[in-house]
């Protein structure tokens, strides 16, 4: 495996872990950031592939309940 491929793989895993953590600890903020990003990508004048990416990134309409994104998992409130 080349050094570049290894770097890309590690970057992907670390990025995914960071986003997952944000979603669990700060669900409302993560939802808002994702929504802002998707709207920015879908704006008029963007190339079609970016618009498609924005659409794919659009978060579900309801954010997880505030303060429940604790990661505790004991009460299942964060499901």
């Amino acid at each position, binding site marked *: *495996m080349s*050094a570049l491929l*290894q*770097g890309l*793989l*590690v970057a992907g*895993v*670390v990025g995914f*872990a*960071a986003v*997952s*953590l944000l979603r*669990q*600890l700060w669900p409302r903020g993560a939802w808002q950031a994702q929504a802002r990003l998707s709207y920015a990508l879908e704006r008029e004048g963007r190339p079609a592939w970016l618009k498609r990416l924005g659409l794919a990134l659009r978060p579900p309409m309801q954010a997880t*309940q*505030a*303060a*429940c994104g*604790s*990661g*505790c*998992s*004991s*009460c*299942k*409130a964060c*499901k």
Partner: protein
Amino acid sequence: MTAESTTLNIALVGSPNCGKTALFNRLTGSRQKVANYAGVTVERKEGLFNTPAGRRVRVLDLPGAYSLDANSPDEAITRDLCRGTLAGETRPDLLVCVVDATNLRLHLRFVLELRRLGQPMVLVLNLMDQAKRRGILIDTALLQQRLGMPVIETVAIKSGGTQALLAALDEEAPAPGAVEDTDDSDLHAQVSALLAEAVTMPDRTDRLDDRLDRWLLHPVLGLVILAVVMFLMFQAVFAWAAPVQNLFGGGIAALGAQVGAWLPEGPVRSLVQDGLFSGLGTVMEFLPQILLLFAFILALEESGYLPRAAFLLDRPMRASGLTGRSFIPLLSSFACAIPGIMATRSIQGPRDRLTTILVAPLMTCSARLPVYTLLISAFIPRQEVLGVFNLQGLVMFALYAAGIVSALGAAWVIKLLRRDDGEHVLLLELPSYRLPQLRDLAIGLWERASIFLRRVTGIILSLTVLLWFLSTYPGPPEGAVGPAIDYSLAGRIGHWMVPFFAPIGFTWQICIALIPGLAAREVAVAALATVYAISASGDDAAAQALSPLIAADWSVATALSLLVWYVYAPQCLSTIAVIKRETNSWKQAGIATFYLFALAYLASFITYQTAVAWR
């Protein structure tokens, strides 16, 4: 009614301790879905099963309630669902009201209340085996006639004990009754009349219960027995789990080495070996101990001993400003402070509730177990005390006891500060003693294992990957001589923190572990494993278990200081967030954070300095 293709929606409703959940487990087996009711943190348990005639039944296990006059969010859910007014939930086709056949005096009142709703309903007399053993005779035909609904006998804990109920579900659904508008005092009169007509009860209580209660509820002996039970529980957790834990650890290490050998040299191998296998694997090793602890707690709960423990502890807890009602939330906090804090909603007095919320984080949650176990295994010798006890188990018991005593002490200080002399009354139902059922224990343990695995594959995995990244990058400059981790972001953060934590004996590696530990305490163990794996000079050292590494690197004073730190530390952001939500006050969340941090630092300081002075 013949078997239909449509699904029948039923709801199990009844008072606590009537065997409702055992009936739910018996009916549904493993086909259960556990979630929350929309917008609230009340557990929603739903399951599916087929009747002998092939009818598909969807069953909801409603939270236990004594009355439709709700005193807690759980009871409000039950009330609204029975009335068909709960948003997002359809009205059940049939209410299956479960009662304890040995305690009809208490439970029949709720049946009559439910009957007033005018819904199709059947009455299930559960625990009929116990009722028969006690010589309680119930004229079910007469009861059926008087109540105007089918009355079915079950023994939920026995295979085949629910056949009558399954057969009844294949029959024509009972017609809905008329909506009644009777006075609550009429209900008491009706219960007395029903009992006089249809029930013959030689004694109001079970003789075996009375005999056991004479010992177990004795004001002095009862407390001694409770202490012995708790003590034995922690001894067993340490002694019995060790072989399985070693097996787990060995398996994970071997798998890590094998996977590492398949991967090419470079950051991917380091991520998998030093991050995932060293970090996550170390946390996974503690699953047997966590499950063993919960097996004991579930068994005590199933046996009917826990409410008695609450009753016993009411007096000592009152002295410290709490009541026996705080016992269940505090006991729940042994699993995690979050459900414990949420369980305080059942405490009616706002001051008692606030005090319980503020002291709940002092109870030793299961996330601390990996930290305690690691440090005890590394620094406390495995030796017998008095020829019977295990020294490691004794230390574990002492740590749990320290949490409990500190919680009572903190509650006492809060009581002094608020100058509260109010009277506290505890009303509690003491259920009959029962032998815990293996099936229910297995389902409960499976739930706990799922929760732990969800944490491991969720927040702990994410934190471990990020910590590996922070401990690996940036790499050392050319010509650097020290360990690579010293040049990484995590290494630098650890070294910056050391001056503040040096008076309590913490090394820079511990300082690094404290940060991800804020999100989930057990990540501190994973973080230490990752940091030591990356710091290791060679592959052999990296593959070593964490326990001998820290035993060689830390002083006993440091280990004791860290143990004491974890008794008090407010190292759980989610707990602080839940305190804010439950009290609706940043001030209370701030007070909790500050007092716990101050207590942790002070206790660790005293421990470390004393241990150093004695060395």
